């Protein structure tokens, strides 16, 4: 082709239907307004104002998405495209929008307590979460690959900053850097995939691509396949499919916990929305090519996620691997590639989001000041210190394990039903195997929480002579299992970060030596017994242990209340957790409403 003369092409400015992008406009406009107001007023507003306005804007987004939902599912209405076919307004996009808005609402409620505790009161967290949510909404409703890329970047760039928002913590910076480098890498790969797809189909519009591929049989579709593979890689990074998952545990561990609550659900929802729309909707003609690849990715994600979660000793890392395994389940619906599979994936995404936000909110509360209290050990005896928190966490874990009468069970049920409909029995079996493995570490954490405080000692005689009785057996058994699995890791490097509640615990005296001496060292265990027996009265009287209580007897009244105790009175977080629990149980018992909702959330084409 002659490159000398540039043909003049008329650039037609499209008509913009502002109603179609109302949810996005509310989020972006709201974020900018909050930022501008806080700058103009010199931050004179109380910090809670930012949280309230973000929650309000999230509800407004939810309302506008609901309005569009009823508009397009009404009798005489149907899904439509807007802005030069760049945006699809269909049930699918509105469901994703509602999901993102609900997550934003929950995170906005739970964040102020955390931010106050960590001494970061500004509007940045809320503004970034709103902007990130707007990217997710854009990604869910994109009908054009470039729009999807823009959505992906708006989502991700805000998330990188949220991951690194704790400037004082090295771990937070490292998490941000890892997320940024790998995220930018995957975005570039995704973009190159778009370029190759554009080159082989002549358009970046999803409908045009589907049309073109339906009408033309490509003689050499190598470039298109390469493009699809690179796009899959980009999405795989975003939703953390194995083998593109390496960033996710590090980022989850290092980032501030409310950021993790937000990114774990919103980034997954947006990533899967894009994945489903591009592969199920725009590239159905390549199904025979991508289905086996997704099958392999799904199996790898299911198994690696749940197996590696078992050996984690950090709760945030464990939940990161558990969310990887959930991603495998969500992918099953797409591998099945039938309408019930897509509905199952959407239902799973919906339930997963509430579970992820709920569990990370609990994690943020348990973490205590400095957001450092994440070892499994710090969950021991949580039921005594914070009974409601422990109950909520137990519910979240039970739901994630897929026990009946929770949404987690139904989510797994619907994707597996879709997989068996599509005759992928092997995949369904592997998924069940994975959920059995996963149930182990969920239940382990659950048992740990209900074990008596400091059950690590496993000195059954002492405990039996003391106040606790039957549950101690379960506690020592579980902690023995945990110790056997975790080896010395459970107690070594983490120890210096360990919370006052643990270091100051009566039972935890041997831990101060570091290492793993508790079960192996009879002398130490003996001293532990002695201490327990002598301290029996104080223990049965007061469970709260303050700093400085190590190795000597102190009266309960002079013991300081640990910081996590104060965080337990965080009303916003309590409401947020309560909503998550209610959704999990209510839609677990009465699922028909939500599954109908997911089934109606049809794609445009």
């Amino acid at each position: 082709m002659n490159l000398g003369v540039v043909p003049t092409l008329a650039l037609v400015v499209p008509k913009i239907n502002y109603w179609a992008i109302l949810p996005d406009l509310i989020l972006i406009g709201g974020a900018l307004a909050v930022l501008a107001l806080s700058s103009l007023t010199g931050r004179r507003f109380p910090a809670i104002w930012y949280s309230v306005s973000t929650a309000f804007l999230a509800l407004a987004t939810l309302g506008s998405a609901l309005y569009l939902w009823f508009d397009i599912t009404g009798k005489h209405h149907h899904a439509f495209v807007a802005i030069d076919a760049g945006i699809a307004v269909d049930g699918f996009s509105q469901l994703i929008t509602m999901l993102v808005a609900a997550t934003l609402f929950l995170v906005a409620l739970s964040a102020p307590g955390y931010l106050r505790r960590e001494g970061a009161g500004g509007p940045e967290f809320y503004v970034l979460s709103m902007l990130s949510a707007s990217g997710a909404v854009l990604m869910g409703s994109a009908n054009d690959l470039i729009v999807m890329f823009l959505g992906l970047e708006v989502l991700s760039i805000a998330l990188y900053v949220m991951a690194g928002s704790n400037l004082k913590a090295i771990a937070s910076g490292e998490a941000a850097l890892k997320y940024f480098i790998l995220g930018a890498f995957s975005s570039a790969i995704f973009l190159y995939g778009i370029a190759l797809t554009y080159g082989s189909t002549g358009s970046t519009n999803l409908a045009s691509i589907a049309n073109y591929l339906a009408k033309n049989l490509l003689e050499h579709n190598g470039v298109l396949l390469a493009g699809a593979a690179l796009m899959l890689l980009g999405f795989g990074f975003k939703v953390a499919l194995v083998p593109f998952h390496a960033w996710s545990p590090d980022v989850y561990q290092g980032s501030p916990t409310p950021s993790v609550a937000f990114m774990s659900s919103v980034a997954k929802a947006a990533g899967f929305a894009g994945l489903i729309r591009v592969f199920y909707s725009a590239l159905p003609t390549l199904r025979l090519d991508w289905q086996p690849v997704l099958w392999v990715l799904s199996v790898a994600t299911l198994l690696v996620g749940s197996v590696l979660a078992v050996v984690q000793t950090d709760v945030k890392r464990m939940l990161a691997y558990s969310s990887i395994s959930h991603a495998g389940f969500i992918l099953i619906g797409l591998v099945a590639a039938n309408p019930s599979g897509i509905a199952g994936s959407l239902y799973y995404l919906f339930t997963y989001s509430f579970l992820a936000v709920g569990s990370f909110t609990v994690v943020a509360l348990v973490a205590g000041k400095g957001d450092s209290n994440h070892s499994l050990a710090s969950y021991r005896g949580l039921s005594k210190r914070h009974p409601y928190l422990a109950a909520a966490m137990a519910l979240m874990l039970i739901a994630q394990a897929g026990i009946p009468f929770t949404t987690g069970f139904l989510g797994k049920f619907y994707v597996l039903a879709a997989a068996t409909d599509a005759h992928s029995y092997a995949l369904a079996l592997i998924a069940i195997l994975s959920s059995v493995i996963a149930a182990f570490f969920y239940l382990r954490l659950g048992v740990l929480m209900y074990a008596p405080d400091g059950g690590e000692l496993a000195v059954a005689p002492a405990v039996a002579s003391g106040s606790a009785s039957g549950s101690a057996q379960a506690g020592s058994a579980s902690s023995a299992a945990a110790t056997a699995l975790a080896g010395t890791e459970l107690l070594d490097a983490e120890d210096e970060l360990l919370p006052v509640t643990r270091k100051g615990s009566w039972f935890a005296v041997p831990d101060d030596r570091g290492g793993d001496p508790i079960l192996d060292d009879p002398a130490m265990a003996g001293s532990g017994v002695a201490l327990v027996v002598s301290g029996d009265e104080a223990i049965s009287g007061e469970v709260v242990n303050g700093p400085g209580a190590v190795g000597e007897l102190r009266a309960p009244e002079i013991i300081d209340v640990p910081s996590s105790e104060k965080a337990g009175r965080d009303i916003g977080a309590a409401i947020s957790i309560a909503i998550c629990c209610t959704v999990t149980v209510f839609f677990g018992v009465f699922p028909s409403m939500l599954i109908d909702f997911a089934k109606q959330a049809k794609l445009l084409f």
Partner: protein
Amino acid sequence: MTVHASWYLILGAVLFSIGAVGILVRRNVLVMFMCVELMLNAANLTFVTFSRELNDVAGQASVFFVLVVAAAEVVVGMGIIVSIFRNMRSSIADDIHVLKG
């Protein structure tokens, strides 16, 4: 002399590969960051070439969006690198290893 469009595509692919390999093997965060930019611009070159081949302006318009995104990414990325450097006094990826498990 005319240069066939496939040369531009091959150049794009080569640049993209250099960028991708660079991220995987280089250890300096700034260099890794430059490699990302290289990959994005390789994609841009591919877009423009296809745009010419298809006689469709949409591909060229896409490049502008990508440029804006790349600029935003630079700002955020540099911010993160500077904040890490303040804490760690290093921009070598191997030195930054608090998180593991």
